[in-house]
């Protein structure tokens, strides 16, 4: 749920990166953190295990400038991808305005992608969202690795809503900002509509 403060002229929106374990959600945020102008981003917080697996969430606040006199702030979160952290994922989805579903393109991760997408839809419903309406972008990550599924296969498996889909190799930054821009646009378009159908 976006927060608009007319007194301080600020718009705050929450974007969550979702997907199976080791698909590259944290890598997306790390790349954004490294490449953003320091004035436009805050501190990146990672609540991770000693082996750098996300335990609760990563958090990166961005300020992207003004539109119509409103400062725009976007709070980026990742969820822990491992199956047994489902309670944490549900908490992080609270108040979300837009989701990036980060899929691992490797053929061996097909089942994990499908399971995670079903988990996302179920958790959104539990939080009172319509999973068919919330702004969503699909990122097909790890396109630089061998043995990846074709775009057609990934589309058929994950993109039943026909939402924007972007190829990426987040470790080298390919597709990372394109994904971010796409989800931000969808969130702002939704904000303009004010949640109307």
């Amino acid at each position, binding site marked *: *749920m*976006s*927060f*608009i*403060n*007319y*007194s*301080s002229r600020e*718009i*705050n929106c*929450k974007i969550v990166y979702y997907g199976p374990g080791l698909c590259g959600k944290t890598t997306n945020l790390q790349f954004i953190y490294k490449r953003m102008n320091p004035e436009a981003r*805050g*501190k990146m*917080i990672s*609540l991770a295990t000693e082996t750098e697996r996300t335990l*609760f*969430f990563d*958090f990166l*606040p961005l300020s*992207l*400038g003004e*539109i*119509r006199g*409103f400062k*725009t702030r976007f*709070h980026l*979160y990742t969820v822990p991808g491992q199956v047994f952290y489902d*309670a*944490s994922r549900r*908490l*992080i989805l*609270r*108040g979300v305005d837009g989701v990036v579903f980060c899929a691992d393109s490797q053929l061996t991760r097909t089942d994990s992608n499908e399971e995670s997408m079903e988990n996302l839809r179920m958790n959104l419903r539990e939080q*009172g*969202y319509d999973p068919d309406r919330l702004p969503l972008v699909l990122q097909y990550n790890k396109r630089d690795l061998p043995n990846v599924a074709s775009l057609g296969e990934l589309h058929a498996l994950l993109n039943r809503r026909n939402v924007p889909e972007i190829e990426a190799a987040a470790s080298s930054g390919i597709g990372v900002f394109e994904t971010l*821009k796409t989800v*931000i*646009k969808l969130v*702002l*378009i939704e*904000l*303009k*509509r*004010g*949640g*109307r159908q």
Partner: protein
Amino acid sequence: MSHGSFILREPEYEALLWVLQKLLTDASAKIVFLVDKDGTLLASAGDSVGFDTTSLASLAAGNIAATGGLANLIGEKEFSILFHEGERDNMHLSVVAERIILVVVFDRRSSVGLVRLRVRQASARFNDVMVAALAASDAEDGGIEELTEADIESLFK
């Protein structure tokens, strides 16, 4: 409340600031702030220099959410008060008006007893303001209609 936007207008924002400022003084605190349960900072009072209030807001919401999950596991709705004691500074977190987190940071010039008392007194005032703010927000359609596609594109130039 819907999943549209929470819109805070000037009168309610000023009212929240007034209650925060009074609590800051009454509790002899260093800084007090209000955070939405989604992790967004709504308002603050006190000397915020040296505090990363954005990160603090996000972690405070995460803290309340995680302990709320723990509470559910033992059959409680939520743990409405959390207290963290440090060597110099302490933090008192409480849920007010059901969906807002009130965070008070204080040092040895105050005490947890005083903070709890003042927070309890301020909670009723916060509740009144938030009820009015949420009603006003729900009455609006929640959008910024004047926002154009060109405005959105301008963010990325």
